[in-house]
């Protein structure tokens, strides 16, 4: 997802937030949301989410109302939240550093006690901890953070419902990485960073850093 887009969906504390940075056409926005739900069909199966709308530009109330009416047709959306959003934060609270507290408690955690092999998929609306490898050709879609106590060589989509999630791997070499709606394609220049790596979203991009020397506080 490019940085210059006029609107985007961001996972936000268990909800999905539509951040509209610049005025756009209704159909463009609806189409974007539609593609998002379609490409994450398995993830949203059987659940509904709170949908937040956050305009960062001037939009008439009638525009918002029309948008809501159209969005209401998506069965994945449970309810809308609009009025009492904290408009000072830009959609996602930046994780200032990984030393910041990352709250695992906000979501349930699923443990997987084996490696994911090619063709296998995990969809979970919370954090996922894998005691094994994530092999090429496998995929994880998680609402929260993904911790891989092994090699990460597959595709990871983390933080679908919370962009302040992290991805950690003992051996970090994903084919593709996404956190909270932001993509990071694996690049060769990140090759020298392999062991104990953490990825998180900050300043409109995904940061990939060595874990070394960090404190990781879970919960309270």
């Amino acid at each position, binding site marked *: 997802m490019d940085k210059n887009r006029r609107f985007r969906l961001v996972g936000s504390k268990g909800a999905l937030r539509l951040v509209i940075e610049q005025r756009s056409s209704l159909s463009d926005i609806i189409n974007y949301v539609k593609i998002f739900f379609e490409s994450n069909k398995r993830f949203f199966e059987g659940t509904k989410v709170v949908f937040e709308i956050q305009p960062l530009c001037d939009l008439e109330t009638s525009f918002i109302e029309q948008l809501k009416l159209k969005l209401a047709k998506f069965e994945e959306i449970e309810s809308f939240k609009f009025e009492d959003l904290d408009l000072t934060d830009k959609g996602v609270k930046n994780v200032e550093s990984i030393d910041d507290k990352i709250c695992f408690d906000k979501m349930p955690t699923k443990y997987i006690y084996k*490696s994911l092999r*090619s063709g296998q998929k995990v969809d979970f609306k919370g954090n996922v901890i894998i005691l094994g490898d994530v092999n*090429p050709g496998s995929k994880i879609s998680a609402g929260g953070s993904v911790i891989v106590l092994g090699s990460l060589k597959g595709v990871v989509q983390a933080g679908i419902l919370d962009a302040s999630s992290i991805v950690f791997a003992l051996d970090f070499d994903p084919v593709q990485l996404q956190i909270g709606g932001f993509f990071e394609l694996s690049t060769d220049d990140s090759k020298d960073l392999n062991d104990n790596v953490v990825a998180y979203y900050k300043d409109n991009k995904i940061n990939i850093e060595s874990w070394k020397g960090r404190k990781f506080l879970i919960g309270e």
Partner: protein
Amino acid sequence: MGKCIVVTSGKGGVGKTTTSANLGGGLASLGKSVLLADVDIGLRNLDIILGLEKRIVYDVMDVMEGRCKIQQAIVKDKRISSLYLLAASQIHDKSDLAELIDRFGEIIKGLKNQFDYVILDSPAGIEQGFMAASNFADEAIVVTTPEVTAVRDADRVIGLLEAKGIKDHYLVLNRYRYAMVKSGNMLDVEDVLHILGIQLLGIVPEDPEIITFANKGELIVTSDITNAGKAFQRISRRLMGEKVDFPSFEEEKGLLKKIKDFLRLG
């Protein structure tokens, strides 16, 4: 009670039939009674590799559909006395096997009472027939070549085997080319094991002699002078639980060097 071992792969053409036949021959040469069953229906060639195609009267489908008794369909190998073959049908297409799956299970059970090893030469893992073959297996051997696509597909098949509850699975790495690995143009053993994470049963080098032997209808495992033959002998012994060292990369390099030196002198 014998063991049923399914030999499979993700990709086709990586050496399942070659491995099944030579492993069967290797185990039989070590004194075990072995039945090789060709389950790759429609693509039969185990009988050709063994040089037995002229002796086939009945096949596995004839047994399943009641046209003959199982004993009538089992053919004895010409050279190795405790090696037997149950041929696949060439006429039926693979979908037939799925319908007769329960009957197939009974046959395997009966064969396990009769032989030390029942080896199933199965179709590649994504094809129909793989499921039938692996349903009744106690252990699995996954064959792959050191190519990225073959390894990826092997990984998928191992996932399917694990889902079926087959926990004992071993890897045979076939068509390994030491020179190419050394020059960095081929995945090495470590790379492959790092991804697949299963027990390595053996490495079979690329060896043109395999094709020569197959064309003669002879098993290369009976040859003590070919690299592939020796590799299959080691694989057979390891499967029987013997601890057999893996010849190191250095040794193979040494061998190559010797050959090169020899050529230079000559």
